[in-house]
């Protein structure tokens, strides 16, 4: 059963051309007999061709459905292609039924709709098999003549091979086996069966193993029937993996110039160094949290909110050392770290914000932060400082904001820092409240303010039943007035047909008043 459905799916590329041809033929017949409807000599062939087209469209749609389930295609395009394909099949069937009607209009309209669905369906199908931009690629202007500087060995040697030989099946529009080879991150990630690279060991790397399989093997890459890579290309890949499969290594001297076979070679750029995955996993295992400071940036915000007490100096060093270049925002608040961790923090080149609240850090530890070059915000709340910390804090030129509440410094000490660093925002818990500027006396009420507009001030409740509208026709809708929907404007009672019309009236009351008075 499974194998049969599999075969059915694979008939899609063959079957799909039948409805296209037949529908095109049908369109030709309709055009030919456009002005000779009464004769209609083509009725017999027309019915036959329509039914063949409808049948083959249904088969194409069904087989396409099963082919699409292989999961190797861009899901978004596939989804649209599938819906359009089903639309073509349904419309083709309707067209077939419409052949029996007396009038020519239904069948022609339906045929037009069928063709209108067929064209985008076919285009999307081709996009999936041949890749984005297949159709118009020859028309695109060639890339600039001046070669882009090649910054890495990967971009110089490896990427051109992948771009020309692999990415059409392992890329953005088709990711066979869950594998994409169009960016370093995705190459590192591997496919559904795992990583494809083992740095330093080409023979154990899946990508190389598959290149060397016999041509008949099912797992061979490129797959049986496609041109294999040249031995020279395989050697380049092997050498690169042997040397560590680095995406950042500079190009080798005398390295081969990039093979310019594709018209759309992307600009090679040095990939940003990324935080190592094992170090991030270790943070997560310690119930800590590391996230990018924003999407796509390699800098990190790291904190330990869940189990802060488990983090001591040794643990902090173990977890943070591999991430030193990447940490921009670090919270060690409520952990058990001491001064011993501070020198490591001072090494972090990107560190902008550091939160040491509720730790046992002292002035001696803070002293090592003098080396921190990017530090802008420092939280030392409830640490164990002494006045010597002021010297260190005044000396960190990049510092913009510091929190010192409960850090063991008295007000004169904090004020001395305020005096020395006027550009520094210092919060020491002594400026939390805004003062009162003014206060009202006793409140007294009166009603002596003049009314806003002309309606005379009503004293006491008005008996609405005595008010009669001056108009009999609603000024907004023109329908007869119902007296229960009456409002007062400029002392005049104006009636409406429903509770919604007064809204319209208030948009421009005088205009409507003029209408009413003109009509009276």
């Amino acid at each position, binding site marked *: 059963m499974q194998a049969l459905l599999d075969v059915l799916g694979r008939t899609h590329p063959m079957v799909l051309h039948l409805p296209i041809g037949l529908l095109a033929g049908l369109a030709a017949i309709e055009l030919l007999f456009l002005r000779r409807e009464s004769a209609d000599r083509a009725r017999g062939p027309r019915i036959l061709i329509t039914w063949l087209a409808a049948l083959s469209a249904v088969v194409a749609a069904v087989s396409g459905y099963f082919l699409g389930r292989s999961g190797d295609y861009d899901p978004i395009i596939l989804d649209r292609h599938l819906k359009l394909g089903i639309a073509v099949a349904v419309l083709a069937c309707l067209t077939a039924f419409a052949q029996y009607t007396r009038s020519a209009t239904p069948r022609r309209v339906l045929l037009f709709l069928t063709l209108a669905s067929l064209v985008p369906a076919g285009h999307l199908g081709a996009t999936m098999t041949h890749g984005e931009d297949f159709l118009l690629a020859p028309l695109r202007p060639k890339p600039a003549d001046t070669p882009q500087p090649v910054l890495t060995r990967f971009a110089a040697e490896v990427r051109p091979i992948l771009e020309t030989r692999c990415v059409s099946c392992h890329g953005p529009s088709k990711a066979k086996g869950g594998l994409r080879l169009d960016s370093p*991150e995705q190459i590192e990630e591997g496919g559904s069966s795992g990583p494809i690279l083992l740095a330093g060991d080409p023979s154990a790397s899946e990508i190389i193993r598959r290149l060397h399989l016999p041509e008949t093997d099912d797992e061979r890459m490129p797959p049986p029937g496609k041109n294999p890579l040249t031995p020279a290309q395989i050697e380049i890949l092997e050498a690169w993996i042997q040397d560590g499969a680095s995406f950042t290594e500079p190009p080798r001297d005398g390295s081969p110039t990039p093979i310019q076979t594709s018209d759309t070679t992307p600009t090679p750029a040095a990939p940003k160094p990324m935080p190592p995955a094992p170090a991030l996993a270790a943070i997560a295992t310690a119930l800590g949290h590391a*996230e990018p400071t924003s999407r796509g940036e390699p800098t990190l915000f790291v904190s330990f909110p869940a189990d802060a007490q488990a983090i001591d100096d040794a643990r902090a060093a173990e977890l943070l050392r591999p991430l030193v270049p990447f940490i921009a925002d670090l919270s060690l608040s409520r952990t058990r770290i001491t001064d011993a961790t501070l020198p490591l923090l001072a090494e972090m080149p990107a560190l902008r914000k550091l939160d040491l609240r509720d730790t046992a850090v002292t002035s001696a530890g803070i002293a090592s932060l003098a080396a921190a070059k990017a530090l802008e915000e420092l939280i030392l709340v409830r640490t164990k400082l002494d006045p010597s910390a002021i010297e260190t804090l005044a000396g960190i030129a990049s510092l913009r*904001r510091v929190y010192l509440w409960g850090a063991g410094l008295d007000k004169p000490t904090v004020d001395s820092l305020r005096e020395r660093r006027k550009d520094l925002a210092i*919060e020491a818990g002594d400026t939390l*409240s*805004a003062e009162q500027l003014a206060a009202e006396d006793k409140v007294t*009420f009166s009603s002596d303010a003049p*009314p806003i507009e002309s309606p005379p001030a009503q004293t006491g409740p008005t008996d609405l039943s005595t008010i009669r509208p001056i108009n009999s026709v609603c000024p907004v809708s023109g329908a007869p007035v119902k007296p229960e929907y009456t409002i007062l404007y400029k002392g005049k009672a104006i009636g409406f047909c429903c509770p919604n019309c007064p809204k319209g009236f*208030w948009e421009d009351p005088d205009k409507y008043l003029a209408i009413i008075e003109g009509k009276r």
Partner: protein
Amino acid sequence: MSKERLSPATHPLEQHYLDMTRRRFFGTAAKGIGAGLGGLALASLLGAATPGNPAGFYSGPSPHFRPKAKRVIYMHMEGAPSQLDLYDYKPDLRRRFDQDLPDSIRKGQRLTGMTSGQTRFPVAPSMFRFIKHRNNQDGLWLSELLPHTGSIAHEMALIRSMHTEAINHEPGITFFQTGNQQPGRPSLGSWISYGLGSSNANLPAFVVLITQGLGNMQALAARFWGSGFLPSEHQGCRLRSAGDPVLFLKDPEGVSRADRRKMLDLVGELNEIEAARTLDPEARARIAQYEMAYRMQMSVPDLTDFSSEDQETLDMYGPDVRKPGTFAANCLLARRLAERGVRFIQLYMRGWDQHNNLPGELRAQCGAVDQPQAALIKDLRRRGMLDDTLILWAGEFGRTVYSQGTLTQDNYGRDHHPRCFSIWLAGGGIKPGIAFGETDDFSYNIVKDPIDVHDLHATMLHCLGIDHTKLTFREQGRDFRLTDVFGNVRKELLA
């Protein structure tokens, strides 16, 4: 299971197709194509996962751009506090006591069924004194009922020009919480949990704390913190104030922690089989929630134990702080949750629905919230946490200038008023010490800088580093957003 299944970096649809390999599909279809197609349709109905992150090294959700705030504390005043008696200072109204509200102000706008039958709409000026506090403009007038809140005027961005579409509590709160008046959409906290993920593996990313009011209370439905169509791990977790904070969290008597662990391991295996068989993402959500509950057995008692707080801090929040469930206790709890990296802390204070006896009830309500809410802001400020915590204080709408029921010199009531009301923001990303927007002389209509609920949501997401047009979830064939097709980030409110 393939490794991609565990990585939320993939588009949900793509993820689904990755799961639905050819072999799996035919495996499911072994009993006939019909069953396979049925399973497929069913599985397609269930959305999946979290929004992706194209930075290859990191698979969790993350902000679109560098955020100012990392978390939110949202104090919702359920029932709708009167802007006229608290924030929107209209001294001239005192000379219009008991005058009729002019038609040119009301403009025939709809009223609730509670006052539409009134024969007249007498203007009820606020009977409370106002006090001017220093802020970063020319000072801020606030009611004498909020003296402590006045002391944080320099931190607040008071918006007097908020408006909403709903005129009753249920749709009003639903609109504020989910961006839509109809129930069923995910709440703000769920969107933020979905968009930013959790930073504390031991606690839910979205926690709800409720305080019973002292005035007229309205129903509070659990769907206000529901996750709608988002995966259910994003729904708010309510911490109860009496007894166990989380129901059914404690092990029953006679069950040791080791026994519990063994039981969870076994149930986890069974759920894993179910997840592999049906691809239902809810099976995995269930495993995750069992595991979190196990860890919460340890983390929640530590969270709710105030013995580590010093006396000065407790005094700052006021005498009620010792009573679990009071607004004071919940404000302190909110700070402790914020310290523990919880993304979205939702406080509800009930009892603001003053249709009658407003002066007395409002005095009691303000007495319960004023000191704690100011203490929370100051406590966050001195701990260096206000810069990355976004604060929102809001009711679901405002109250009318005219009195509902009898108006006397010292008593009146006010009906629901959606056309203008006052809320405030503070903290991460918000411009401190400003008042924004203006209403007319009757606090009935907005005359300058109106802000609607979608604008508020868009602006809050912006502070959290999220582009509100890009945080989407595909459901029933289209991408949904918190702000639907509306919402503008109001730069005037940003620091």
